[in-house]
């Protein structure tokens, strides 16, 4: 009898705890300690994927027959700034890609300069963090070649991409779109600075005149409207300090999953 009561009390206790758990989910979600523990899984994901990617495998490449009939444009579709409008009006003839930071030779490259460099064309799948995918054909210059041209200074660890678009209107500039990748991805053969999509000049909705393609990671890493690439040893001082617009808003820096 005594055992029975204890057991029953235990069961009632645990069902109360279970209900508490469900209604208390949002409290758990907002608990900083819980978040710190949950975030540890990102290091595990990145560590294990990098281990299995030691041989630098390529993302799957598709054929023309696999192209999405409509490639969804996402994020900013038209940067809202006078500077960008002026560049667009001039067909990006005055646009320059600045490469600086921890490099031996800072660069300022025109679209023609980039197009004169060796190019790579790839038909790959673009995966949005929301869940949808689209297949497109991209042509551009491998980022590794541009970085070799600039020459990395000792200690450089990340390439930070500064974009022309402000995705969130803000007074302090914290809504500026930016992204970052490490040198493993920067020198991956499929990581290109793309100026052409589906055989035509990159459209404004897709990031004209230049966007990053970093296959093997989710769409938000593929920064559009590139203006400057800075080589850094840490992105701690930049905006939220997490290395990207969406990263500063809670998304993973390593977006291979």
């Amino acid at each position, binding site marked *: 009898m005594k055992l029975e009561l204890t057991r029953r009390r235990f069961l009632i206790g645990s069902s109360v705890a279970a209900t508490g758990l469900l209604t208390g989910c949002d409290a758990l979600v907002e608990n900083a300690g819980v978040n710190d523990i949950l975030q540890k899984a990102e290091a595990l994901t990145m560590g294990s994927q990098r281990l299995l990617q030691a041989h630098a495998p390529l993302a799957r490449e598709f054929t023309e027959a696999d192209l999405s009939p*409509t490639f969804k444009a996402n994020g900013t579709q038209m940067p809202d700034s006078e500077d960008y409008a002026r560049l667009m009006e001039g067909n990006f003839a005055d646009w320059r890609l600045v490469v600086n930071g921890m490099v031996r030779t800072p660069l300022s490259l025109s679209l023609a300069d980039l197009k004169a460099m060796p190019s790579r064309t790839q038909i790959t799948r673009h995966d949005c963090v929301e869940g949808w995918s689209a297949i497109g054909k991209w042509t551009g210059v491998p980022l590794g070649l541009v970085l070799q041209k600039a020459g990395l200074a000792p200690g450089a660890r990340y390439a930070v991409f500064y974009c022309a678009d402000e995705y969130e209107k803000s007074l302090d500039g914290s809504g500026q779109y930016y992204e970052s990748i490490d040198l493993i991805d920067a020198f991956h053969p499929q990581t290109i600075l793309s100026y052409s999509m589906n055989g035509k000049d990159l459209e404004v909705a897709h990031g004209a005149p230049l966007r990053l393609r970093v296959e*093997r990671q989710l769409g938000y890493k593929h920064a559009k409207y590139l203006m400057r690439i800075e080589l850094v040893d840490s992105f701690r001082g930049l905006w939220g300090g997490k290395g990207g617009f969406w990263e500063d808003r809670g998304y993973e820096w390593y977006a291979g*999953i």
Partner: protein
Amino acid sequence: MTSATDHEPARPRKILFYRHSIAVRLTHWLNVLCLSFLLMSGLQIFNAHPDLYWGQYGADADHSFISIGAVSDGDTIKGITRVGSISIPTTGVLGASTVGGELTPRAFPSWITIPGYQDLATGRRWHFFFAWFFVINGFVYLLYGLIAGHFRRDIVPARDQLTPQHLAHEIGEHARLRFPKGEEARRYNSLQKLTYMAVIFILLPLMVLTGLTMSPGFNAIFPWLLDVFGGRQSARTIHFITASLLVAFVVVHLAMVLVSGVWNNLRSMITGYYGLTVETGKETVK
């Protein structure tokens, strides 16, 4: 407690026997925890793009064959769930449900997603944490099942349980909600064993594999998974359907726990000891 004297006439008596090892009980409850959080955070992720496609790609302009959305209806909205060409009004639950007293476009309602509000980043963080937890727990269980003989002893049906007569008999008994008693209740019945096998060896591994197939990083490592499932968007659809089958399993599992002796079942999954009635003198106690 269990010794019997030969001259006593046989009479029914209750015994407790050790049914679930500590490894099974622990991995079972950790799995409950993981799958609950995986389901709720998974529905949060689904809500970010509540359309399912087949093939390598799929986005707004492409044909989706399952879609949970909201359409405007005068000055209010209604929820519509579409499977193929069949549209079903699901206002209040799917497509449109109340958030803070107001009918809001949402594929799955607030009470079943984690967090309750729309927050994809947090949903993903919870999902991937518990995915790792689930995979590690699952490996421990599989290893235990193989090495300790749990699968052979408890999960794989015995030969006598697979005869057509036996199966037909069991289906009939299940339909009447009558369950094995006495010595026969020491082992799982064959429908139970076959169901557990399907969950352990098909549905749960399928969840992991289709989940991994959605990862662009993992696609570069094992591209053949894309061929197995017919593309990332197909894998996403199979992930969703398999999760639905697991929910269906849990509903039936809980119903069976309730109708076949809820306290006895719960005790055995918590303490390990399952009670059954046997003829005196016949019982063997482990």
